[in-house]
């Protein structure tokens, strides 16, 4: 049997079979089918083919797939945080570089003054990028908010009060204070909250 020459109708037959034609187009197809045996035969063929494909498709477990997707997707959704950690924004990178330089300088000073080996390896300083051009202002005295429960009086130690005794001499509180000073030292740099979160998450 030759094929119908109404190609615009034949093109729509799969949509007609699947019931996705708009009502007007559907009416046009039905009007044509009423008078075209070849297209009716093609509708039967397409319907049989569709039903065969559906019936013969291997059964797959959507619930199992869904569970696997959720399991694999959880870390993917955290991907933004991970990428932020791997490629921190420049502002955060500058702050990190500045911290490395200061720690390196402190270590070197400790070595020069006391003659003991610097605890921070030199290569770290060597690979650090140049510090930001923003001048580091003089440390500002902070009002003491110390309470009776806090016996460590060095928690607000400004940078100037760190007498370059070497980073191994810094207490955790002093190190935290120094980082706090760095925050104040570069007020124009845009801190990226996502970077901070990523760093905290990683640590």
């Amino acid at each position, binding site marked *: 049997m030759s094929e119908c020459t109404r190609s615009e109708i*034949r093109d729509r037959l*799969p949509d007609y079979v699947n019931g*996705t034609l708009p009502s007007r187009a559907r009416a046009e197809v039905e009007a044509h089918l009423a008078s075209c045996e070849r297209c009716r035969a093609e509708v039967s*063929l397409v319907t049989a*083919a*569709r039903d065969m494909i559906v019936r013969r*498709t*291997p059964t797959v477990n*959507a619930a199992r797939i869904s569970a696997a997707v959720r399991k694999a997707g959880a870390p*993917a959704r955290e991907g933004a945080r991970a990428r932020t950690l791997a490629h921190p924004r420049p502002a955060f990178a500058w702050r990190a570089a500045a911290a490395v330089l200061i720690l390196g300088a402190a270590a070197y000073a400790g070595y020069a003054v006391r003659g003991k080996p610097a605890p921070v390896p030199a290569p770290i300083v060597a690979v650090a990028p140049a510090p930001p051009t923003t001048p580091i202002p003089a440390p500002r005295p902070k009002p003491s908010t110390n309470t009776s429960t806090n016996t460590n009086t060095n928690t607000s130690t400004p940078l100037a009060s760190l007498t370059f005794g070497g980073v191994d001499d810094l207490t955790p509180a002093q190190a935290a204070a120094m980082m706090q000073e760095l925050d104040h030292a570069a007020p124009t740099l845009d801190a990226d909250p996502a970077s901070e979160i990523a760093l905290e998450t990683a640590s």
Partner: protein
Amino acid sequence: MTQPQGTPDEPADRALIERWQAGDERAATLLVERHTPSLARFVASLGVSDEVEDVVQEAFIKAFASLEGFRGESSLRTWLCTIARNLVRDRVRSLKFEGKQVELEEDHAVTEHDPLDDAVADEMESKMASAVERLTKMQREVFTLRVAEGMSYKEIAAVVGSTEGAARVHYHNAIKAIKELLNV
């Protein structure tokens, strides 16, 4: 077989994607349930028989892992089919590289039929299956996407990496070939 974009009672794919990205795991389940049957049919049309579920799962995982890059220029279903197609192609290449038998070549049978299954199956369906299996790989893919998934030629072209016009030609050639094979 209709465009799985949600009904008035079901959220569209885009809305579900946004819900998933906001942390709603149920949205992922809905998307998977919505697109799994369609994707499985397409994967089977590519000549995969035993590993349909594996391929479908891998396609979903890949898609969800890169949803940030999904701009919605095509439908999610089209995108999933494209990913699945690439996965199958990679598997075939890998098998070839390892020197294993590859069953997904052009004009090879799509599925292996159980003789008992054939005996009890509807005769017309068996004949139709044989006819579809004898189509070229491209014809079979296009035919399945058009007939079973109701995709437009534009969507099909995006999946198979062709043009709308070429997809239309492949479809009509497939119809013609099936008619000849079935003597109708």
